[in-house]
């Protein structure tokens, strides 16, 4: 029986749910000192002086360092020329929360007191928190050497004005995709221990090898002496593949003080220092014919990068423009973007990273076409879908070739589950019944680019390569250890990879152990991001396992004096087909595999081991059709999600429980973006006003609906598993479904669009003003 596809309970849960997992802050080596950062209270200023004397006088304070102590070290990796970011702010601070000095003390409480005792004097500079402010006539450059706050511009060759003008009608929207915070349950934490024979760093990170590669270079030590461990990691969502200064500073402090040094953020620090996501402004316009078919699409994107150009942050708009046309066959597509620095926390990947922004705009504009043509939104989608026969489908961008999908089938399934016609009928009936809340239904036929594995795809973001590694090692007793370079942070890799290995090897699930996240154990690796775990790491384990099995069969055949082709693996044993009782256990084969006298002459001892780097010829393109039914309180504007239907196509489902878990979590974040969350700043001072969980509205279970889940399956032809990845799907698909539903409900008030988060107050204002707010 195949385990791939089965609802196997998560292996890691007993540890994680019983409080026996190990996170960075659970580790406390002897003599461990604690670091805490003095961070900028100003959004944009020059540093006049830093007075550390009072802090140093506090008993238990070991040291205070400023940029002056780091002149021997380079700027943080990944910065563009003229946009470099030093580990500690040098001369200029560019956002509130930017580390300015670091205090090291015997414990975190003394460190906190000492941080408060450091005085920094600033001369304020002009504060610009929005793209508009940073590009206005009176703006001043954050990086005077760069000269402008516009960092990159990728213009379009053709603005499609002609094509748009030829169409029967044009629809356009100005869309703000607001800034969000990733809010992993575990904020940043790092522990560094510099020993004469090498450095070990424990960090809550999504890509330990990536950190090892850059950290060693930055510290100018050989990688062999730089071990990075990502122990249990409490969520990441993209915010833990960023070059935070703390990661680089901690090892230096440990070296200077000759003690292990730990830093663990508070939530408020995390809200200001961990990278944010989204923060794009779109102008989208389409030209359509009378029947709703879209002939031309123009998308103009502005990306707020925050105060520094994170390598991923700089690439977000690329992904957005790649995915601009979504699930639709649009003959002419034109995209352009620019990226702009502002006095805010840097922006990087956040679950979906560039694709939720694309899906949101295309799904909003399709609804607008429906509105303007008077057609049903489902019909407009059906008329524009790329047909299943058109795959692989070449898009407006040569890097993007959709692998496989059946959009009409997914939408049909979604409409069936939500009972679309019945909801439409109910909605009509309610129009004339003010005693009932408004009703709206929204669709989202989304598509995203995932499975970051093709050569070159991650190199562009600064990674060593884009393959993923696997190593499968059979122990002498026939149990197996699987090493994966994709280091998880909650997804369930131990379960998923064990299922795959178990199927391939014929070794039972419980006799497979998965090891990740330690550069001393896992030889090389890339990491967990971009919905690549199953497509790349899963495929790597599948192929490596099957190669091990081939050799194991050879040994088994040798031991049984049978032909390899006659063997089958059942219940941890190799049986000769048709000869009951003629068998040898996996344990015996494994044991023999280490004994040169018992193996076939062409094999060597220890051959039941395989290591490989799995490459992918193309990305994968998970897709789906979501429907959201909302009720809106006519007086308060309060939104209740009555129904949320999620039909996903992620290719091969390895474990329905894990897949649903990923979708539930992603949809929660998507609903959160649609209704609740948004990072905001006081625009005149640049002070964050949402730097805690009271004001940054992460939803609770009480705010979220039950989900109805459906599925269609088109296999990914580009990896041996046929899997597309599902980690980001929910956060891509949910926001447009929710907002389309809200706009649908408000249509009788003449409302065409409402920006996220759609708070009750915004909706109330829209109802009052008929959308002219």
């Amino acid at each position, binding site marked *: 029986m195949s385990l791939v596809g089965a609802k196997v309970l998560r292996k890691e849960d007993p540890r994680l749910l019983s409080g026996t997992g190990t996170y960075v802050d659970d580790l406390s080596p002897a003599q461990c000192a604690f670091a805490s950062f003095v961070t900028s209270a100003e959004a944009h200023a020059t540093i006049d002086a830093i007075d550390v004397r009072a802090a140093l006088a506090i008993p238990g304070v070991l040291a205070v360092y400023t940029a002056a102590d780091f002149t021997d070290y380079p700027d943080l990796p990944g910065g563009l020329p003229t946009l470099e970011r030093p580990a500690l702010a040098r001369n200029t601070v560019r956002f509130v929360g930017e580390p300015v000095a670091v205090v090291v003390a015997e414990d975190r409480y003394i460190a906190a007191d000492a941080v408060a005792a450091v005085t920094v004097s600033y001369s304020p500079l002009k504060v610009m928190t929005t793209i508009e402010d940073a590009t206005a006539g009176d703006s001043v450059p954050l990086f005077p050497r760069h000269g402008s706050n516009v960092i990159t511009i990728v213009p379009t060759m053709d603005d499609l004005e002609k094509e748009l003008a030829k169409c029967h009608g044009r629809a356009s929207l100005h869309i703000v995709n607001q800034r969000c915070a990733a809010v992993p349950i575990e904020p940043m934490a790092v522990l560094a221990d510099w020993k004469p024979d090498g450095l070990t760093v424990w960090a809550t990170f999504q890509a330990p090898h990536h950190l090892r590669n850059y950290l060693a270079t930055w510290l100018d030590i050989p990688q062999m002496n730089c071990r990075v461990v990502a122990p249990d990691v409490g969520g990441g969502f993209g915010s833990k593949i960023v070059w935070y200064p703390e990661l680089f500073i901690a090892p230096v402090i440990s070296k200077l003080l000759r003690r292990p040094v730990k830093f663990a953020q508070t939530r408020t620090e995390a809200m200001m220092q961990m990278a944010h996501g989204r923060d794009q402004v779109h102008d989208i316009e389409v030209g359509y014919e009378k029947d709703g078919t879209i002939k031309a699409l123009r998308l103009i994107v502005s990306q707020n990068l925050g105060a520094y150009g994170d390598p991923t942050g700089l690439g977000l708009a690329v992904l957005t423009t790649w995915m601009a046309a979504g699930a639709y066959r649009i003959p002419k597509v034109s995209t352009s973007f620019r990226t702009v620095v502002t006095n805010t926390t840097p922006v990087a990947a956040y679950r979906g990273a560039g694709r939720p922004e694309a899906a949101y705009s295309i799904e909003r504009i399709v609804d607008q076409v429906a509105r303007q043509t008077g057609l049903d939104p489902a019909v407009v989608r059906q008329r524009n879908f790329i047909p299943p026969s058109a795959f692989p489908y070449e898009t407006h961008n040569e890097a993007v070739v959709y692998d496989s999908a059946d959009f009409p089938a997914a939408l049909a399934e979604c409409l069936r589950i939500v009972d679309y016609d019945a909801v439409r009928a109910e909605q009509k009936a309610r129009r004339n019944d003010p005693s009932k809340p408004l009703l709206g239904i929204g669709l989202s036929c989304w598509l995203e680019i995932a499975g970051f594995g093709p050569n070159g795809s991650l190199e562009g973001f600064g990674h060593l390569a884009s393959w993923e590694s696997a190593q499968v090692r059979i122990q002498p007793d026939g149990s197996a250890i699987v090493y994966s370079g994709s280091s998880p942070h909650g997804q369930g890799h131990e379960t998923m990879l064990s299922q795959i290995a178990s199927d391939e090897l014929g070794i039972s699930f419980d006799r497979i152990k998965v090891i990740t996240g330690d550069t001393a154990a896992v030889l090389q690796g890339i990491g967990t991001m971009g919905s690549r775990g199953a497509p790349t790491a899963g495929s790597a384990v599948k192929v490596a396992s099957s190669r091990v099995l081939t050799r194991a069969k050879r040994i088994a055949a040798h031991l049984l004096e049978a032909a390899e082709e006659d063997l089958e693996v059942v219940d941890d044993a190799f049986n000769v087909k048709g000869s009951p009782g003629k068998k040898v256990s996996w344990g015996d084969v494994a044991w023999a595999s280490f004994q040169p006298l018992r193996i076939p002459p062409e094999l060597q001892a220890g051959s039941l081991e395989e290591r490989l780097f799995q490459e992918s010829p193309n990305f994968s393109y998970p897709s789906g059709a979501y429907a959201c039914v909302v009720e809106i309180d006519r007086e*308060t504007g309060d939104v209740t999600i009555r129904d949320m239907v999620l039909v996903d196509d992620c290719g091969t489902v390895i474990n329905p429980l894990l897949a649903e878990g990923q979708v539930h979590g992603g949809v929660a974040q998507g609903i959160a973006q649609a209704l609740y969350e948004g990072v905001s700043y006081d625009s005149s001072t640049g002070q964050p006003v949402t730097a*805690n969980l*009271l*004001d940054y*509205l992460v*939803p*609770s279970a*009480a705010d979220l609906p039950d989900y109805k889940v459906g599925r269609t399956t088109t296999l990914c032809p580009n990896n041996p598993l046929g899997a597309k990845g599902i980690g980001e799907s929910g956060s891509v698909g949910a926001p447009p479904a929710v907002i389309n539903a809200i706009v649908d409900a408000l249509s009788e008030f003449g409302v065409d669009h409402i920006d996220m988060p759609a708070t009750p107050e915004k909706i109330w*204002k829209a109802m009052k003003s008929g959308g002219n707010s």
Partner: protein
Amino acid sequence: MSVALPTSVDEVVDLLVRNPSATLLAGGTDLMVEVNLHGRRPTDVVALNRVAELRTWSVDSSRRTVTIGSGVPYAEMETGELARLLPALAEAARTVGSPQIRAAGTLGGNLGTCSPAGDGLPVLAALEASIDVVGPNGSRQVHFADFMVGVKRNSLRPSEFVRSVTFPLNDGWQGYAKVGTRNAMVIATASVCLVRTNDHVAVALGAVGPTIIRANGAEAWLAANHRMSSPPSNDTLAEFGRLVREASRPIDDHRSTAAYRRHAVGVLAQRLLTRSYS
């Protein structure tokens, strides 16, 4: 920092007399936020959780009152006998924070903090609860209206603290409603407690002014223009809502605009009035 662990009300008074600047600690759900996030550094703390008397409540059937110790946590008000006696308080208690916060947070702390958004306070205002304040000169009863004097300001004198709150029991209807930015773990952007008896409707508004506001104009208008025995007409509701809005004095902040707060408090009051007849 010193922490005293008194076990009786007298001991608390003694400690406060000796050190009027000592900080009282009940559930700590406000105080620890002050300490951890806002840099408050108390030097002497008097912890109340071992004072058994503060953690009890009782009914006086002859006087028709319920007296709740200042250290009784919200969790005890949410269900059971207290919830039956004081349904509005139960409704308010259920909206406070999360289960963890309700297991620790107390009315004494809500009164100590005296935030206009405190969920217990509109209930005290609408029910005209009286607060038993103990100090060096014994105890005094303070009407809620005289207790809360401004944003996070109360009329406690040095070395005084809240022993208990006494609520009159009545046969009427009472309810509490709150609007916030999400469904749980949320500070009210507007809240209303409404109490309807045979001849009167009392309405108290939270989070829409520097103190809890009694909508006196709306109350008087209803008493004069509405027959309490029957549900309000649409016109009555409209005028009632208008007068409630008029009574509010909200401000703009990053959680809500004044305009929305004013609107919401009117809607909540109208809905509570309607609900009181259903």
